[in-house]
């Protein structure tokens, strides 16, 4: 179905006809984000250049009842930027100015299309940086980080995006432009900034963000340690935390993930080792040196088979490049994969990994693990081949892993968001009342249900069904409902 010509003209007036993509071939380039298992071709893509143009676009959507989906770099892994049928995509890729860096007050004002790493780039000459560091930080945009409340390896010590955003300028689903939050971290009244952070594009579109900047740490120490089992590596993590050390990051990778990362970046990871930890400490030199020694002792105690300390900033960068490229690098060892994002209590790491391994061998599907061990945020990579017809089995396994995390007292998603991918698993984690409250918050912002509809919350009519080729819903098969 194509758009009402009046809406088309109104969009053209809002952003300029040359900033609209409506050609059927070109629109295909927007049919998915980083989660390629779901594809929907939008009716139109808008490429506004200013907050006002974004607001004008959303007003047109509001007036004509057209659903819209905001899109940054399209790197999300939960299908949060998946277009909706008969809807438009509003791309923020052209709002990419760093408006202000204020070193005295340690903050920066940026547009949503600025990448996470560009903020640090703009602040670096002042000895400042932006702390949250999702692995895709060189490409993912701050607008998307706000939507997903993104984390990253260093969130163990420094917290998530929400801890680093002072205020956001937002276009609400009716097209009004408001600012949530303010210059000081504490605001009077309900914390609407807090509600908006991590709302996955369902409450509006961010057009300007004021972020906090931190002082670049005096020193950084990074080590890479191999262990005979994931269990031993998991115990090291627990012992580090028990010793009162707050590492900047503790990351774990298993054999398969190491194989992929090493092939991609040649950073000196040990091929074939069952588990490797990347431990990073930062802060004052004396403190780092002292704690670093303690960490080495803990590693040795747990049978560390090789301990490598990054001797130069380049070596440190290479270790991190390997870790951060690991997801995509898995493309080298498997034609297709699903990434999961469950969280478990840190103490149950070894247990959950054991169960994932069992579930994988039962399903005949390989699972690679690379994750933020410090905060129990897992990223199992379910490897499969669509060409070999493994999609369904892999998808099922992937869902089971997410639900296993909930069962063990954790959650469905640590940082990638619920999006399209995990909406149907929400009832495993939340009661009907919980979901109803979430829905009411959502409709308070978006009464017409046009702002990224179908994401995050399960839509009862569709749950169990998925966008894609038609297959009958279980309830349809049993004759409880019928398709109109």
């Amino acid at each position, binding site marked *: 179905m194509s758009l009402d010509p009046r809406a088309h003209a109104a969009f053209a007036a809002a952003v300029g006809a040359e900033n609209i993509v409506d050609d059927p071939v070109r629109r295909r*380039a927007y049919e998915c984000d980083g989660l390629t298992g779901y594809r929907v071709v939008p009716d139109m893509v808008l490429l506004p250049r200013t907050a006002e143009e974004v607001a004008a676009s959303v007003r047109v959507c509001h007036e004509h009842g057209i659903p819209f989906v905001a899109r940054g770099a399209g790197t999300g892994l939960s299908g949060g930027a998946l277009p909706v049928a008969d809807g438009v995509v509003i791309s923020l890729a052209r709002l990419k100015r760093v408006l202000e860096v204020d070193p005295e007050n340690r903050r920066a004002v940026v547009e949503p299309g600025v990448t996470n790493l560009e903020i640090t780039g703009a602040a670096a000459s002042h000895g400042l940086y932006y702390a949250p560091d999702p692995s*895709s930080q060189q490409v993912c945009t701050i607008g998307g980080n706000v939507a997903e409340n993104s984390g990253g390896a260093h969130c163990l010590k420094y917290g998530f995006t929400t801890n680093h955003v002072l205020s956001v300028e937002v276009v609400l689903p009716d097209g009004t432009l408001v600012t949530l939050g303010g210059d000081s971290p504490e605001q009077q009244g309900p914390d609407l900034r807090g509600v908006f952070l991590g709302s996955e594009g369902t409450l509006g579109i961010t057009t300007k963000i004021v972020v906090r900047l931190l002082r670049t740490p005096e020193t950084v120490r990074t080590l890479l340690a191999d262990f005979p089992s994931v269990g031993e590596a998991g115990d090291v993590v627990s012992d580090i935390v028990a010793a009162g050390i707050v590492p900047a990051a503790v990351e774990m990778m298993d054999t398969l993930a190491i194989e992929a990362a090493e092939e991609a970046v040649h950073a000196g990871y040990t091929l074939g080792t069952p588990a490797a930890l990347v431990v990073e400490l930062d802060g004052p030199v004396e403190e780092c040196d002292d704690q670093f020694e303690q960490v080495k002792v803990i590693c040795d105690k747990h049978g560390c088979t090789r301990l490598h300390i990054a001797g130069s900033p380049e070596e440190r960068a290479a270790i991190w490049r390997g870790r951060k*490229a690991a997801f995509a690098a898995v493309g080298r060892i498997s034609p*297709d994969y699903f990434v999961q994002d469950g969280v478990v209590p840190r103490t149950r790491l070894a247990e959950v990994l054991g169960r994932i391994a069992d579930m994988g061998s039962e399903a005949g599907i390989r699972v690679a693990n690379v994750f933020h061990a410090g905060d129990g945020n897992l990223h199992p990579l379910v490897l499969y081949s669509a060409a070999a017809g493994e999609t369904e089995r892999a998808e099922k396994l992937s869902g089971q892993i997410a639900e296993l995390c909930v069962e063990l007292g954790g959650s469905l998603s640590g940082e990638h968001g619920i999006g399209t991918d995990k909406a149907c698993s929400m009832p495993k984690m939340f009661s009907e009342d919980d979901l109803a409250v979430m829905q009411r918050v959502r409709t308070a912002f978006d009464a017409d249900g046009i702002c990224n509809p179908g994401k995050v919350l399960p839509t009862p009519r569709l749950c169990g069904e998925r966008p*894609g080729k038609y297959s009958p819903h279980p309830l349809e098969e049993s004759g409880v409902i019928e398709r109109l």
Partner: protein
Amino acid sequence: MTTPAGSAETNIPQAGPSAFDPHRPPERELLDDCVHCGFCLPTCPTYQLWGEEMDSPRGRILLMDLAAKGEIPLEGPFTEHIDRCLGCMACVTACPSGVQYDKLLESVRPQIERNVERERGDQLFRNAIFALFPYKRRLKAAALPGALYQRLRTVPAVRKLADKAIGRLATGGFSRLAAMESLLPPVTVREAFATLPVHTAAIGERRGRVALLSGCVQDVFFHRVNEATVRVLSAEGYDVEVPKDQQCCGALELHSGREESALGRARRTIARFERLDVDTIVTNVAGCGSSMKDYGHLMSDDPEWAERAKAFSARVKDVHEVLAALEPRAPRSPVGNMDASRGLRVAYHDACHLGHAQKVRAEPRAVLRSIPELDLVDIPEADLCCGSAGIYNMIMPEAADDLGKRKADNVRSVRPDVIVTANPGCLLQIGKHLASGPGEGPLPLLHPVQLLDASIRNVPVPRT
């Protein structure tokens, strides 16, 4: 149906016959390597300029996939977005999944040239480029009126007239011609017609024998770079052969999808060089090096040429690879700058076809660091193409200008005394945009071997 649906498959199903013809279509496995992670976006020049998925590497790969699945035709938007690709291969460097975009593009461009009819003006312009640039003699002839013209431009009245004419060309939709004109480097008649010695003996004990590809644009417009290359190689202990009857290696055509013609040139180049008794075939041009190293792959399914091409490609090296492989032998002197209080500040620009396509990044830097008291600096956004990209700055002048200005700003930001890069296209493009921007006087733009040559001979750094 309640909700129109997208495909639920990671892989798009085959909707119909592929839009590609059966002669070397993009390989299925190579297309499937892309996991759509987006790590390529920040280094893609066209995504940086326009922020559109269709003009990003993963977007282009998705379009290739759709064409192969029979969902979209080659004519129209597909060709437009592939044409807009600079072929800089920054995405190949950035890709964690090891996607070989270079190979994909190399198979898709000839498909377009064979199967898509171009608009007449576009076709004529492209034909004109390929009737000129691969031919050294024609280039020389073009350079002669060029040389005369440049001398005439020093007369104010002539300059005024010429500027007017170019302005009219630019506004009259002839911006491509204006772009070509504005890239013409200053060339002296002497230089345009100078030739290199066929044999140059190694100075001192011989460390090896090499043959030099003298290039087309390189030999006509940058003959001095070839002269410096021969001197430096000889000073470092190499016998240097420069076959007189060598021709274009086919790089420009290969990178533009003119496969048949490029293959012909590749075969002639192989035939000319393979009978020489040398260890290495050296080039000082990034674009030529990347295409000659690719001959082996290019002819892999040609039974008559596959082995010869493979053997040839294995012998090809960039001049920096040769120089960096052995300890420097000829004594180096510091290359002076006006202010003796510090070393010469040199900004090295990675040519895409050297850095991204050949992964030669450390060697040129090592060669430059062998010069005493030289302060080597990196340019911000070094991965980003300068916009030259073979014939790109002639066929897509506006985009090339935007990238050129950006590169010039980045170069200025590190305040170098000299800029060096190993590709004539980059030299012309960066030179053009440095000259048109702010700054105190023209900065010397050189090939790294020119600096090394000055250091070995202990002479002042040349201005061009």
